[in-house]
């Protein structure tokens, strides 16, 4: 690519190659991955929900973030559908919660950021800054899901990561479009 990354005007991810990968074990099975990924989506949904409440006096921004809450809900739904299609069963969330108590509380969102810390940061920020944080979080999740699809050994788990990265790509395009409108 001419000019290297300095010429690149698109989105970039941050962190070392293994960033976020410790969260998912390469030997994890499809069920564990769905459980952990679902929890991260839940964290992102809680973040968007919290941010939408920051903009109660800005109906357009509030509606925008509520739209992102719905997108995360759809993402969670698609994740479960993918799992069911691949395995013919539903994930055992009760069993997963017992095994991954710390990870499955919805306290961490995509990109490995703590929801509470992100909401504290965002509370006195404008729409554009909150969207930029959302994009940074989603682009790191996109980066992670692509790398995990290559790193995991389980074929079903690979398919789930491919599906997740494809959905993140669509989500990022939507965020970029929203950011363009508000800047």
């Amino acid at each position: 690519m001419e000019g290297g990354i300095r010429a690149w005007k698109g989105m970039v991810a941050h962190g070392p190659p293994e960033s976020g990968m410790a969260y998912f074990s390469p030997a994890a099975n499809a069920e564990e991955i769905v459980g952990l990924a679902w929890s991260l989506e839940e964290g992102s949904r809680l973040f968007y929900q919290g941010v939408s409440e920051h903009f109660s006096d800005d109906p357009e921004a509030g509606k925008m973030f509520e739209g992102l809450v719905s997108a995360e809900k759809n993402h969670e739904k698609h994740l479960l559908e993918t799992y069911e299609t691949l395995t013919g069963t539903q994930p055992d969330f009760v069993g997963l919660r017992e095994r991954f108590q710390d990870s499955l509380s919805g306290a961490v969102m995509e990109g490995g950021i703590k929801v509470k810390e992100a909401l504290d940061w965002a509370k006195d920020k404008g729409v554009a800054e909150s969207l930029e944080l959302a994009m940074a979080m989603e682009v790191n999740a996109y980066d992670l899901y692509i790398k995990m699809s290559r790193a995991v050994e389980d074929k079903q788990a690979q398919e789930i990561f491919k599906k997740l990265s494809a959905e993140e790509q669509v989500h990022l395009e939507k965020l970029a479009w929203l950011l363009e409108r508000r800047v």
Partner: protein
Amino acid sequence: MGVLDYFKSIPTMSADEARKFLAGKNPDEYNLVDVRQPMEYEGDHLPGANLIPMAELKDRIKEIDPDKPTVVY
């Protein structure tokens, strides 16, 4: 790899062409390789890029699928 391979011209893409190329494809369909140093990669990198620093390319060449187009930066 033969001597003549050293004389092959390698097509290059502008950053804009690369962005369009990557946006229209599934990450499975191409190799995206970052040949910079780990610290540079850590600072920022294209999503999904595989870090293979220039000095390690020879030893890790098998990580690049020759049947797929490759974008290097």
